[in-house]
């Protein structure tokens, strides 16, 4: 079965006063129908720009998708007309944002914000749209939906607003939902609820989910596959369990060490990733992670390692020392 979404060699750049920023620099990955894929990386690694590129919502100027293909259900989204693209947004691909506080329009009722999408894409009449809205609120676990529909966003708590955002994303039964750090702004107990809800709904409705996050705990628990991004490129990609237990890129390893874990001794100190993310206008020909990498060798400064397979099961890593890393790590 062909994948639902296939991103091939995507390049998105921003022309700024300081130079050209290659925010997404040749990223390729696939998402299968009903699958949950996590995109992980630090701030500025190109995770969100990559997601917005799929919806073609990069502000132009200064941004531009310069190369690549985005095949969604067999169509190249980059070759669609503006009109056709608008039909895809919200209807076939839904999006959930980070900030539930500001992602809902304060002057429109919850009901209007849900039914508007239906009326836009499905040409539904008011009564049908209202019925569907009630159904959706029930689905995302909001009690007393009829009353909630008449309320405004400020009358709801953060967790409820994020549930509303999920409802809006699900309105037109999309085949893919992109969630851009959906739980970052919520407190921990609510985070778990929202993630459980998303996991359950995507499974039940067979919706593929791209979850953009810097929270590796989220990845471990909910994602089937993980894409690790650094400086606009994929540095490691593979099944979540593989990447989590046998990371083959120094950056992934560093990320994993920087997170507290219950299966490690409690006395062990957390190990932050040293240094700063690189300035994307000043990348040289070598590996972008080299300055922060404790395993860097001479070859790393000469060319960029390509994303290549390690073993089976589709585990890929962009590191010259991908095969020797486990043994070097033990030695170090």
């Amino acid at each position, binding site marked *: 079965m062909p994948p639902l979404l296939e991103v091939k060699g995507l390049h998105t750049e921003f022309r700024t006063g300081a130079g050209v920023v290659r925010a997404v620099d040749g990223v390729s990955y696939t998402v299968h129908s009903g699958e949950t894929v996590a995109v992980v990386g630090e701030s500025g690694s190109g995770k969100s720009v990559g997601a917005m590129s799929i*919806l073609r*919502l990069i*502000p132009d*100027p200064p941004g531009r998708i310069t190369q690549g293909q985005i095949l969604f259900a067999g169509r190249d989204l980059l070759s669609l007309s503006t009109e056709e693209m*608008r*039909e*895809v*947004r*919200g*209807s076939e*691909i*839904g*999006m959930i*944002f*980070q*900030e539930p506080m*500001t*992602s*809902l*329009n*304060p*002057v*429109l009722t919850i009901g209007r914000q849900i039914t*508007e*999408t239906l009326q*836009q*894409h499905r040409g539904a009449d008011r009564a049908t749209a209202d019925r569907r809205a009630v159904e959706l609120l029930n689905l995302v676990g909001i009690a007393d939906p009829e009353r909630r529909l008449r*309320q*405004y966003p*400020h*009358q709801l*708590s953060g967790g409820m607003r994020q549930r509303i*955002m999920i409802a*809006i994303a699900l309105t037109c039964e999309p085949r893919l939902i992109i969630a851009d750090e959906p739980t970052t702004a919520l407190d921990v107990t609510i985070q778990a609820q929202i993630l459980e809800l998303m996991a359950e709904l995507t499974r039940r409705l067979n919706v593929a989910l791209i979850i953009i996050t810097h929270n590796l705990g989220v990845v471990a628990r909910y994602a089937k596959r993980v894409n690790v991004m650094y400086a606009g490129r994929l540095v490691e990609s593979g099944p979540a369990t593989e990447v989590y237990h046998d990371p083959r890129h120094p950056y992934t390893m560093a990320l994993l060490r920087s997170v507290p874990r219950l299966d490690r001794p409690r006395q062990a100190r957390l190990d932050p990733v040293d240094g700063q993310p690189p300035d994307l206008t000043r990348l040289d020909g070598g590996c972008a992670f080299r300055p922060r990498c404790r395993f860097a060798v001479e070859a790393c400064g000469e060319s960029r390692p390509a994303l290549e397979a390690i073993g089976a099961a589709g585990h890929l890593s962009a590191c010259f020392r991908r095969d020797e890393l486990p043994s070097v790590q033990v030695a170090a």
Partner: protein
Amino acid sequence: MAVMTSEAPDEIHRSWRTAALGFCRRQPLGTFGLAIVIVTAIAGLSAEWIAPYNPTANDFEAMTEAPSWAHWLGTDQFGRDLLSRIIYGARTALIIGFISAFVGGFAGLVLGVGSAYFGGKIDLILQRVMDILMAFPLIIMALAVVAIFGTGVQNVIAAITVPLIPRCARVVRASALSIREVPYIDAARTSGFSHSRIILRHMMPNVVAPFLIMLTAFVGQAILAEASLSYLGLGVQEPTPAWGLMLQGGAEEYASTAPWIAIFPGLAIALTVFGFSLFGDALRDAIDPKLRER
């Protein structure tokens, strides 16, 4: 959560009467302004029934008469009753003031929000055009429009509307720029809504507060501009009763012997503009949540 849900609906569905009473209590000056606006509006709307005389009827037996029981505000050099002319003049002032302010305001609203939403080159070009229009003082701009298209009520309205557009567009753009950056606009785009829908339904309601305040100020400004143009002979033409018009001709000639001809229309202009300004200011304070007492 329980507190939020029990309190918030009251705030939203607070009845108009409570809101109006609250406004009167907190903004006594604004209430005074509102009273002037209401009196002017009543005068303008029901001029036929409350004006004691025909505003254009000459009475050569009663020329330049001082205020008396027969003519409360006196008569002008043609014996026309000043009170009646002021009452009918309110209609002219309000028609021109409201139409100019609303047309100019809404054009500015659309241009301002659109400019902020699209940004980039469109924003740059629109804003430079607005800068050029703003470079002319309101009255000079209006003079130019009247000089090109001639006098008459419609042209006067156009002359006053055009210079109001950039003033409104600029203020609205400033608020819209900050709203453009809020994620719910991105969210609307990811839902596949068209540009016009996002501008009209998602952005405009969010800039309504500054817009309303500006609109009240604009009505006052437009009334003043209309009076100025009429006074200069470029606005409304005789014999239509208009406040600006009443200040020229006889008012100048008889300034020392019959000052009431100039004083009362002048007072009408000043009071009305003052009333709109007071009301606009109070409205801003009332709408601004930072200034509202909790």
